[in-house]
């Protein structure tokens, strides 16, 4: 195999006879020449080259500007998000119709870990409310938030448009079609996994359709994107309506639940199915961070930089479908999380995916935990559908982003 090495002008060479090696184990390997006399010989038109930039030797290892401040911000953001996540979990698990203080919550958790340090909850039913009802619900909220936000980042990266989002484009509806089909037909071949698998198939089909129709030359115009969402959502809505028509009363009730989006009635077995899928999906997404960065240049330039674009988009589309369907299968359509969270994170730490992906996952978990807390506590003795809440906030936010995108010549940071 041919060995490649960088071609370098002497002014940028590290010098010191530090012979560089080529990567491939080629016996004819070609080191990069470092000329002992930098700048010797033909320097065309050097006399009028003005700034003198061409004749100065680059100090090797010159530090790039900007890096420290952004790195600091990233660290602060991660710390803040982690603290917020833990604090929200402990606070939220104690709030509700039955109040349990954070100290009691901590005591109960430590007790489960075998440490009897703090007193547990005093109310007789508190222990079961805590562990059978609230814990699985909150954990699922955090997982689903992370999945939706990560799905949003992936989708925006591969569509080349910061307004892409599973709910907006209709992937969530597509996944809901799969889940509703399972409900109406009473399928149970894979146990608890049946709904997830069906949602995955529905989500995958809609992602592929939207992706293949909405993109042009590696990016998606906002108008195309929104209209694609309208079309996909219309078709998915029609199929769900048909399924509602077919189903019996109990199936209809369940379908209404999907459409509203709710975490009510979450059981541990749901968490146990969702957790591995979502954790794996979020972790795998991180492997593609650098390639997604390069994809921001467009498909051709990304390929010129060595990205296997075809493979990347297949992997990312499957990833979006997995994350979205895992979320939708258990709590229905919760829109706009994948839009709002990545947008806010980009404003704080920039669009680099290496920080954006994990920060969005954390941020999505925090946001959905907060939304769920609001859903449970805003109206006493009522459990509002969480999808309704996120849409109430996310819809106007989406509109604002569209306006801003149209107005500004600048970026969608």
């Amino acid at each position, binding site marked *: 195999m*041919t060995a490649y090495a*960088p*071609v370098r002008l002497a002014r940028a060479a*590290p010098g010191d006879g530090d012979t560089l090696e080529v990567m491939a184990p080629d016996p004819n390997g070609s080191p990069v020449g470092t000329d002992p006399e930098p700048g010797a010989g033909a320097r065309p038109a050097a006399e009028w080259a003005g700034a003198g930039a061409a004749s100065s030797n680059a100090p090797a290892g010159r530090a790039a500007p900007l890096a420290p401040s952004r790195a600091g911000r990233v660290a602060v953001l991660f710390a803040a998000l982690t603290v917020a996540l833990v604090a929200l979990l402990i606070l939220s698990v104690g709030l509700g119709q039955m109040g349990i203080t954070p100290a009691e919550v901590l005591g109960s958790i430590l007790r489960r870990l075998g440490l009897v340090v703090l007193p547990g909850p005093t109310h007789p039913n508190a222990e079961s409310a805590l562990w059978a009802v609230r814990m699985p619900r909150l954990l699922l909220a955090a997982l689903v938030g992370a999945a939706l936000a990560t799905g949003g980042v992936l989708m925006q990266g591969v569509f080349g448009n*910061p307004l892409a989002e599973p709910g907006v484009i209709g992937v969530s509806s597509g996944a809901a079609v799969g889940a509703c089909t399972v409900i109406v037909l009473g399928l149970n071949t894979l146990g608890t996994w049946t709904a997830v698998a069906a949602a995955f198939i529905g989500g995958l089909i809609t992602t592929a359709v939207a992706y293949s129709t909405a993109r042009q030359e590696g990016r998606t115009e906002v108008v195309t994107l929104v209209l694609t969402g309208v079309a996909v959502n219309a078709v998915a809505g029609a199929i769900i309506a048909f399924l509602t028509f077919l189903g019996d009363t109990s199936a209809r009730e369940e379908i209404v639940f999907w459409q509203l989006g709710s975490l009510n009635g979450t059981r541990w077995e749901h968490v146990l199915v969702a957790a591995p899928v979502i954790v794996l999906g979020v972790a795998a997404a991180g492997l593609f961070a650098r390639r997604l960065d390069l994809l921001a240049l467009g498909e051709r330039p990304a390929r010129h930089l060595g990205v296997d674009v075809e493979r990347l988009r297949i992997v990312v589309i499957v990833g979006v479908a997995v994350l979205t369907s895992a979320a939708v299968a258990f709590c229905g359509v919760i829109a706009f999380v994948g839009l709002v969270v990545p947008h806010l994170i980009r404003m704080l730490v920039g669009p680099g995916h290496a920080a954006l992906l994990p920060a969005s996952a954390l941020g999505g978990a925090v946001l959905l935990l907060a939304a769920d807390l609001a859903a449970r506590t805003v109206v006493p003795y009522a459990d509002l559908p969480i999808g309704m809440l996120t849409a109430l906030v996310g819809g106007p936010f989406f509109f604002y982003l569209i306006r801003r995108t149209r107005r500004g010549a600048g970026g969608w940071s």
Partner: protein
Amino acid sequence: MSAPVVRDPGTSAGPAGAGRPDVALPDAAPAALTRPDPGLPDAGARAPAGPYPWDAPEPGAALIGCEGLGLRLGGRPVLVDVDLRVHAGEVVALVGPNGAGKSTLLAALAGDLDPEQGRVLLGEHDLRTVPVAERARARAVQVQEARLSFAFRAEEVVRMGRAPWRGTRFADDDDAVVADALRTSEVEHLAGRLFPTLSGGEKARTAFARAVGQETAVLMLDEPTAALDIRHQERLLAEVRERAVAGVGVVVVLHDLTLAAAYADRIVLLADGRVRADGPPRVVLTADLLTEVYRYPIAVVEHGDSGALVVLPLRDRRSPQKEES
């Protein structure tokens, strides 16, 4: 102004003249090229010991090219039977009227479009057999329109050009190479700016910095000077020339024929998807040929002091001016 390019007239005659730098390619595929030193007679004086390929130089090894390339877009033949070779150390300008197939040819050479007839070569290999990641270490491409989906900073965009070397020891030099690329493209002061907020010319210079930062043996540039002012046009092409002197092979699409005459070793004139002429500027840029191909009266004159070729569209002053009547 004197002629900006120091060039031996003899060198433009062949694909790569005798004065071309010592360049070297194992299997004639792009690999390390050394910094040339025109002052030295040959590579024998080079520091590294051992049998490096350039010790027995095959001057001007073919880096990229195509044979009998034919391509249709939307049913219309865009390229017909195109043969082209770009050698180490030469600057080849692709010129021709709108729709002649310049960008399509560049895209085919870059591997963006698969040929229907013929083949594209990287070194002696059929391009399709070379993995994408290896192509990225062999050639850098600057596309016509620099766009970005997300608001990265200019410095981050240039750094993306280092991606092919990630995981190799050459990645240690990323900071120095990026700084050098920013400086030579005169975008240092824009390093911290968000790319989408830059002007067209600043974007183009940043994209050029990314391409040269990739440090490949082949540079492919699609109208890199289109959005630039005179200073930056000249600076950019002078940088391109300097890279060519170092052994890089350059293909550049240009519309400005005077620029092409000043900086290219060879000019390939495309018309209707075919190579109409291929040779040194003085051979290709003749008034008759250009007038015919561009369907507009064109004169080619020699500038007195510098001897530089100037391509001049002949404007009929009488017809368009109505104010005088």
